């Protein structure tokens, strides 16, 4: 009876960061849970425990961190222990790994069997013998990775073929061939070396040939120019250069110009060229300095001439105006300034008067008019009512008359009272006779007459007197008012007279005889005065300005003469003045002109230039000759270097050929192995395929090699009426079924003493019917095979539990930092 995995203990591997122990069914063990819950981690732990590797964890990011050991595990190490059991024996396998900086590296396997512990490099070989399998092939033949299935279903032809290789167990050869494919890199290296050889040839060999040809041509040309072969030597050239150095040194002394020293001459072309260049440079510097000196001297002569001439001119001018002394000019300026101030002040005063005059005149005239009106009013009143004394008399008279009228009225009032008493008495007594004269009377008639006649008369008289009295009283009041008015007028007139007198006084201050002239006349007169005075002011200012200019010119001229005199004295180094100073300046100019003559002679410089020019071709010839000799010396080394490079190219070409031979044989092997394997598996593949309900028409799968390097498989299905490419006719579920069939057939072939099939998400593109078909097929694999399945698909779980008699289902809850929560359902 073959071995089965009965228990797996995992701690700190992949997503498992705490100790977990899982028991396995002899039939199907199902791990069910959501994506990311740790199902694949558990399967990878089994793979790592047995093989020491986890597929799909190579290269790329996996070289930058350890993806095998759990990042959160406290012990920083991961362990997997697998218990394998057959009918009689029990094998314990254990692998441990400390966390590293990369996912690569393989840890040794420890195996316990029959009470012995084997822990050496040979442990895996021993295990392979016991289980009769290749541990390297475990990952392909016993473990269907979800990535492999995905590649078959979704990838391009090359990647799809790569996945088929994985299912068939021939992937390693493909990967090896692909790694050997560095043709482009080798060809680039060969091209680079060839370029280097070409560059060396061009720079050395070709250069030497060109140089030799050039030397012959230059020599011929120089001999044709009249030089003999002796002159084309280093010794002769050095002699000529030394001569030029002596000449240039002599010129330095002559011109009193200090240039840099010449380097020491060596008998080789390099030194000659250096000296030649220094000579050229020195000669140019010397000539430049010579011309600069001429220029400076010319400028100095011009400067001296200009200053001397200016000095003479200024001195002559100064002599002419020297009699006018500055003190006189200053006095005159002072006088003019005073006069100008006076005139300006006068203009100012007249302008002020002109401004005040209309105001004052208006005040005066207004007062005068008011006085006239007041006087007229008084006279009119006096004419009408008399003067105040007369008015007082009239009032007195009228008052007396009023008194008389009032007396009369009192009398009448008395009479009225008496008559009233008489009437009352008569009416009471009803007298028949007069009490006074005893005359008989009719009192009734008498009373009637008294009432009618006497009373009416008295009343009439009283009324008349009252009216007269009122008239008199009105007259008295009117006269009183008029008297008061006259007195007020008199007071006003008095005040006006006083104001008028003041205004007249102020006006007479401006214009003494103002009453004799009109305002316009006075204004005109004053404006004329301003005009005339302004003209005078302008004249004075002009005169003052002229005098100032004169004074300034005089001062400047004096300063200029002094300055020029000082300058010329400095230039001539003498204390002379006037004509003697001018004469000394002329002598200096003559001396400078002589110096210019000396510098103007460029004969020696020109001669040296010609010498150097003639030497140029000879120096070039000598340099090329020396370079030619040196290059000839280098030639053997160059040839040696080229040979080395050629040997390198040859080695690279051999390597390229060797790699191509290996690749060709590897591909040949890969092709043969794949075809042999496919042939061997053909029946089983189709058997599995038909069980997972394949295509209704295309019942048989046919996988063949379509192209080599890289190896591309054609993936076809056969029907009664011909073949078809699966990718064009099949659904992804059918494709999924085909991939599962290849895996299961290969796995059953490679079963050995460990008949186990591990499926990670095997039904990722299947519909319900295909899922059930797969579940049924899986159930038939047991008990011949131990089956381990990881899925998140509830339908698959249901079908497996429905069709499988021996099944253990584990539920993996949500993954946390503590690791997955594994529960046996």
């Amino acid at each position, binding site marked *: 009876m073959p071995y089965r995995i009965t228990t797996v203990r995992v701690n700190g591997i992949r997503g498992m960061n705490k100790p977990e122990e899982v028991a396995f069914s002899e039939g199907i063990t199902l791990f069910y849970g959501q994506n990311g819950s740790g199902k694949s981690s558990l399967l990878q732990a089994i793979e790592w425990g047995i093989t020491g590797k986890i597929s799909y964890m190579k290269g790329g990011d996996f070289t930058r961190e350890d993806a095998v050991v759990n990042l959160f595990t406290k012990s920083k190490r991961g362990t997997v222990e697998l218990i394998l059991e057959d009918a009689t024996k029990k094998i314990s396998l254990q692998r441990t790994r400390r966390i590293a900086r990369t996912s690569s590296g393989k840890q040794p396997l420890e195996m316990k069997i029959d009470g012995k512990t084997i822990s050496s490099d040979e442990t895996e070989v021993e295990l392979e013998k016991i289980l009769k399998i290749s541990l390297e092939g475990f990952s392909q033949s016993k473990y269907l990775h979800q990535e492999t299935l995905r590649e078959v279903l979704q990838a391009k032809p090359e990647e799809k073929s790569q996945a088929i290789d994985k299912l068939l167990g021939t992937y390693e*050869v493909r*990967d090896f061939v692909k790694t*050997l494919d560095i043709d482009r890199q080798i060809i680039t290296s060969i091209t680079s070396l060839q370029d280097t050889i070409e560059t060396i040839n061009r720079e050395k060999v070709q250069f030497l040939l060109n140089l030799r040809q050039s030397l012959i041509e230059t020599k011929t040309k120089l001999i044709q120019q009249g030089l003999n072969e002796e002159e084309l030597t280093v010794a002769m050239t050095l002699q000529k250069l030394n001569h030029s150095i002596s000449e240039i040194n002599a010129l330095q002394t002559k011109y009193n110009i200090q240039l840099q020293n010449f380097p020491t001459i060596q008998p080789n072309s390099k030194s000659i060229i250096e000296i030649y260049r220094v000579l050229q440079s020195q000669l140019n510097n010397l000539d430049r300095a010579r011309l600069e000196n001429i220029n400076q001297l010319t400028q100095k002569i011009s400067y001296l001439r200009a200053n001397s001439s200016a000095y003479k001119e200024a001195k002559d001018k100064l002599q002419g105006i020297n009699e006018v002394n500055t003190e006189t000019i200053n006095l005159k300026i002072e006088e003019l300034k005073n006069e100008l101030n006076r005139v300006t002040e006068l203009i100012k005063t007249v302008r002020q008067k002109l401004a005040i005059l209309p105001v004052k005149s208006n005040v005066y005239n207004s007062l005068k008019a008011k006085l006239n009106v007041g006087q007229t009013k008084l006279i009119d009143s006096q004419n009408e009512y008399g003067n105040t004394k007369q008015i007082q008399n009239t009032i007195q008279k009228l008052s007396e008359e009023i008194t008389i009228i009032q007396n009369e009225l009192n009398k009448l009032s008395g009479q009225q009272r008496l008559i009233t008493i008489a009437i009352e008495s008569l009416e009471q007594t009803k007298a028949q006779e007069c009490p006074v004269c005893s005359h008989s009377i009719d009192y009734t008639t008498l009373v009637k007459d008294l009432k009618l006649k006497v009373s009416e008369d008295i009343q009439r008289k009283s009324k008349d007197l009252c009216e007269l009295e009122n008239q008199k009283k009105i007259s008295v009041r009117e006269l009183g008012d008029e008297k008061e008015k006259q007195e007020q007028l008199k007071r006003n007139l008095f005040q006006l007279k006083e104001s008028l007198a003041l205004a007249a006084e102020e006006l007479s201050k401006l214009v003494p005889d103002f009453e004799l002239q009109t305002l316009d006349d006075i204004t005109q007169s004053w404006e004329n005065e301003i005009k005339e005075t302004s003209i005078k002011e302008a004249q004075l200012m002009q005169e003052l300005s002229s005098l100032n200019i004169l004074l300034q010119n005089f001062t400047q001229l004096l300063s200029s003469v002094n300055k020029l005199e000082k300058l010329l004295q400095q230039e001539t180094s003498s204390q002379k003045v006037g004509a003697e100073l001018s004469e000394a300046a002329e002598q200096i100019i003559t001396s400078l002109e002589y110096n210019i003559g000396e510098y103007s002679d460029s004969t020696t410089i020109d001669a040296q230039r010609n010498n150097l020019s003639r030497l140029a071709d000879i120096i070039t010839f000598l340099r090329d000759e020396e370079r030619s000799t040196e290059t000839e010396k280098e030639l053997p080394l160059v040839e040696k270097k080229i040979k080395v490079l050629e040997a390198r190219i040859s080695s690279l070409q051999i390597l390229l050929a*060797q790699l191509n*031979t290996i690749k060709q*044989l590897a591909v040949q092997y890969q092709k043969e*192995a794949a075809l042999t394997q496919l042939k061997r598996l053909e029946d089983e593949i189709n058997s599995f395929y038909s069980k997972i309900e394949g295509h209704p028409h295309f019942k048989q799968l046919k996988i063949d090699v379509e192209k080599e390097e890289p190896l591309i498989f054609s993936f076809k299905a056969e029907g009664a009426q011909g073949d078809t490419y699966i990718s064009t006719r099949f659904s992804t579920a059918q494709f999924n079924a085909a991939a599962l069939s290849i895996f299961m057939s290969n796995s059953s072939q490679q079963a050995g003493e460990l008949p186990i099939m591990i499926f990670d998400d095997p039904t990722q593109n299947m519909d319900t019917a295909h899922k059930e078909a797969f579940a049924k097929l899986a159930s038939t694999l047991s008990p011949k095979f131990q089956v381990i399945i990881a899925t998140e698909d509830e339908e698959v779980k249901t079908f497996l539990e429905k069709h499988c008699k021996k099944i253990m289902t584990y539920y993996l809850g949500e993954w946390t930092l503590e690791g997955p929560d594994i529960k046996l359902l």
Partner: protein
Amino acid sequence: MSESIFEKYVLEKIPREDDGQLFVELYRIYIKDGKDGLSKHLKSVVAQLEG
């Protein structure tokens, strides 16, 4: 079918002995250090030959 069969297959068919030696060397590196290790080795060989 294992890699050892592959190794035997190639060595039997390869025409030159030194090519066979190279194959064995490269294949063992691949088995030991994987794709990255072989790739690194080949780069180093080419660089050494290029100088």
